[in-house]
């Protein structure tokens, strides 16, 4: 069982977390024309990298959506920070 750091709660057991997606997917502006290819890429293309990955996870109890950096080979956690902008 891995230990992930929630940027708010701190370290918790992996059973409290949910993978939300790879970081860096930008939703196309659908009020303008979006090519089918671009939309398909947005929906289905994953980088699925080996090594250092940046992913979006949710800490389910506190619902924090955050960026988790980890090594997909060694499973080491390399860092975590909130997805949201810094507080005003």
């Amino acid at each position, binding site marked *: *069982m*891995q*230990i992930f750091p929630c940027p708010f709660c701190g370290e918790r057991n*992996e059973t409290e977390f*949910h993978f*939300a997606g790879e970081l860096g997917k930008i*939703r*196309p*502006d*659908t*009020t303008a024309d*979006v090519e*089918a290819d671009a*939309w398909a890429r*947005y*929906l289905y293309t994953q980088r699925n990298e080996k090594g250092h990955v940046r992913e*979006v996870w*949710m800490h*389910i109890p506190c*619902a*924090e*959506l955050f960026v988790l950096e980890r090594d997909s080979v*060694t*499973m080491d*956690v390399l860092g975590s920070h909130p*997805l*949201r902008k810094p*507080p*005003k």
Partner: protein
Amino acid sequence: MSMRRIDNFGLVDRAKPLSFSFDGRRYRGFDGDTVASALIASDVRILGRSFKYHRPRGLWSAWSDDPNAIMDISQNGRVLPNCQASTTYLEDAMSARAVNAWPSAARDIKGGLDLFHRWLGAGFYYKTFMWPDWHLFEPAIRKMAGLGSVSQDVLSDYCADQTFDHCDVLVVGGGAAGLTAARAASEDGQNVCLVDDQRLPGGGVYQMQSVDGQDPSDWVADQCKAIRTAGGRILNQTTAYGVYDHGLIGLMQTHRFGVAPGLIRMRADRVVLATGALDRPITFPENDRPGIMSLAGSAELLARYGVLVGQNLAVVANHSLAETSIALLTRAGAEITRIDPKVRPFKAYKGARATGLKQGGHARLFDAVLTSGGMTPVIHLWRHMGGKLDWCETRQAFLPAETPAKMIAIGAANGTFEIDVALEEARCAGIGHASLRADTRYHITALWPEPASKGRQWIDFQHDVTLKDIEIAAQENYVSVEHLKRYTTLGMASDQGKTSNMAGLAAMAALQGQSIPEVGTTTFRPPFVPVPLELYRGPHREQNWHPLKRLPLENTHRAMGAALGEYGGWLRPGWYGDGDPKTQIAAEVRAARTSVGLFDASPLGKIDVMGPDAADFLNFIYYNTINTMTVGSIRYGFMLTEAGVIYDDGVVTRMAHNHFVVSCSSSHVDGVRMHLEAWRQDGHDPDNIYIHDTTQHWATATITGPKARHVLNSLGLDIDLDGAVFAHMSLRETQWQGTHVRIARVSFSGDTSFEVSIRASRAASLWDALVRAGAPFGLCAIGIEAMSIMRAEKGYIIIGKDTDGETMPHDLGFAGPRIKKTSAFLGDRSLHTDKANDKARRQLVGLISENGLLPTGAHIVHAGQSRGYVTSSYDSPTLNGPIALALIANGHARMGEAVEIWHLGETQTAEICAPCFFDIKGEQLHA
């Protein structure tokens, strides 16, 4: 009592004799014995049979590295299969039976299989049963395969306790090194946990004459006392069987026979590995004969159990540590004959109740032949943790290389075989200092299998893998050790290669002309010892396996005779009453259609979405337009995935300008909450949107039917219920007996309905009041089965039943927003792909059939292909006939067409109609 038991040796309690049986014969042993030690003490030579050839097997070793003595054991009606006799502590009235042998290990009728060994080599099954079809042979082969047999009895109280724990320092192994490290660490003020897999810690120290100048037993007791005094914990009979992600260590704590072991998920800041080393076999012809066993194992039998395996013993060893064992055996009165393993050829042969050895023309019989091909450090957990190994030419063994984070190996596990050096190394490790590996006084002559030599030479005793099989594998190019393992099943027996791996990979190295480190090891995987599956199940059983959500009104429903069942993760009334369910359900539908029904709708989602951006946010989340809703109004809508597929349906209420309530499907609340949170924080301003899932604060009673308004009127609420004022799809808030209630005029039944929501702790009062108020109008409590029929009569869908993973809103006839909505919303672009525009999309329609009920799931077929399927089908009490909903290709354009329905080989016809059978004009809904 037994000629094999030696006075003044061993830790067993001779004041506590125990009686047991093996393969039907009675034996005696002592408290503290294992089943194996008691059998050896009783001079039993054959304890099992090998897996493939059914060769007789004696005990190889005294603890978890023994691959041979596997037994089904029962006691007091509790039967456990495949127990290791060498690690199962003897208890009175145990009955053991060797696995894979009948009628007994000594006289196994399949022993003749060995005669066919020439044809049963590596890959035999793969090569032989390919033609014409493996499946022809599979049943017979499966019947022959496997070891013990599982009892049909359910041990209902056999339940593993599972818990989490943590400590500063976990010391694995309670031998001399482990005890010393644990003492040093706990006296240094650290929170220490020492685990040892035996009943008494001490590891191999009992084989020594003294430790640190003390009697071994006294020394062990002193260390344990010091550890406990300093606040450390010692867990006996506890095996660290695996290291998992981020250093989580699985500990299995075993108890009395028949009691499920406990699982401790341990986190430690540091792990000190003091797991010792195992003696490895020597590969020579007929080396699997009963009576040939490990030298270290025989010493342990003597030291722990007071059992001397024989008087007249041969020792075949190639290293300096053998001297300690020989000294011990000699002290117990054994006569030792040393055989030099380098003088080849030598081979074993079968003698009557003895083991023969032939070397250089001489043949001699021994009570037992004790072999030792060198010590292999137990580095399984080291490898689980990701630690690297170095090949040590001096020790002829793999040793822990540079230390991985958080783990340090000491003592024999680290190749430190000298007790004085090991104790110093352990003291350093205890206080967190790594010490450099010292030069060793241990010396060993390299001794590995010699390919192309004559005779049947066993590598894996349990699975019958011989040197010849490894040669075949090499010939057929299975040269990677991982392929070798799977092709020959080398190391795949229940001991997972503890005895066989080193010899196997050394043989492959020799065949390839490579060095042992070049060939490398196979992957070490947990568990280190076999663990019962129960360890992983634990309390996740019965009502705790998938706990259902429970209604605030459950006890009220039970008192009303509800039949409770799982619906979308909740335990809900399916119907009420003891009669035939179909009759009861039909009666509930009729009552609700003709007078009034009362339905517990509490699980319906109630998610507050609040804040300045709430309206625009929901406008993005929903397919439908939300930001134009007026305060107090309710709108039905869909949430889509980005793929345009319907994820959820339900109603949204605008409570205030900045406050909405999302009423998602009962089964979907947790998912919808997360879905909303994810989009709130990713792509929107979370400081202007707040999502509060208040579902479980509320209970909801739905009153539905022509008399619904009358019932609600009798509650004396302070609101005008007139249909013209309080219209369908609107909300009122008021007080009932001093408690705030929300009344939503929405309908899932298709009749006039009111959903009354109140805080859960007041639910029973409200429910009782409604039952009383409804009595004069013939009110009937209805379950979810009746509600499902009524909504189908009206053509209202259930997500996931009448929709599937491809259904888009326009497939259900909700095409407006797809065409008209200009602002962005989830899934919008996906509604305009080629696939979304396909004419052959499956669309929701109704079906009427002349020939009775259509089976749910039946396919609509055309030209031998499925064009859709029946999603919902009921005998409608309202229409007095069958009704069905279906998803059919291009269904909307095919009204009135006859279609062919196929189900389990039978076909019938039905006619496509609009998906609404009740109140088509909506007069009752809006009344």
